């Protein structure tokens, strides 16, 4: 993954993870797998894990320890009311940004074309 892509993802991954949790609670590996299915191919499991810990500490998700056949129990994360509000804010910011950036892209794109 390119450096620029990594940096951009860093700012949005939180919202992306909350969005996947909004559809269904999941544990760390499931979330990574879902993201990979969605085309975020190079996301490391540890990155998602660290992010889950962060959003847990900030009270955006509820955590339940579910026993697994092998190994330690899995922590299953689900979006709570605070997280849902945060996710709503994320989408608003996202829509604002995409609209502005797209407009900027069109403007600068047109300027470039005039020069040709």
């Amino acid at each position, binding site marked *: 993954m390119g450096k620029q892509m990594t940096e951009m993802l860093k700012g949005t991954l939180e919202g992306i993870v909350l969005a996947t949790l909004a559809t269904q609670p999941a544990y760390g590996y499931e979330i990574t797998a879902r993201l990979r299915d969605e085309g975020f191919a190079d996301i*490391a499991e540890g*990155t998602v*894990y660290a992010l889950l810990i962060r959003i847990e500490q900030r009270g955006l998700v509820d955590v339940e320890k579910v026993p697994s056949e*092998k190994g*330690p129990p899995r922590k299953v994360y689900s979006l709570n009311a605070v997280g849902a509000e945060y996710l709503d804010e994320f989408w608003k910011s996202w829509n604002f940004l995409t609209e502005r950036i797209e407009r900027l892209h069109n403007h600068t794109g047109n300027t470039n074309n005039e020069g040709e």
Partner: protein
Amino acid sequence: MAAKWIETLTGSLEQKKQYKQYKARIEALPEPYRGSAKAFERYFMYYGGVTDGDTLVTMVSDFADLWERASVDGTPVRSIVGDDPVGFAEDFARAYDGKQWIDKERKRLTDAIDQATDQQA
């Protein structure tokens, strides 16, 4: 720095016990998970500014959870830590920066600028 990291644990016996448990969990991991976990542990000693025992114990036990899970699932080390192990380590440690020593300085800076702003108002 390493000494200080350990000293923070001498605060309570319970924390000491939990830290020992964490060390045992890491030792019990099969390779290459044990070696990887220890490499991160070393880096945390230099990077991590966590100074209170509670936060530290929570952090290391979460860290042990991650590696135990990975070894049971047989997840390759690379797909756990990604292309940038340093970035992963620092992201991980930052999740616990709620009570870092830098907080005092952050507050001092914020207050100083608030004061400056008030003077100008």
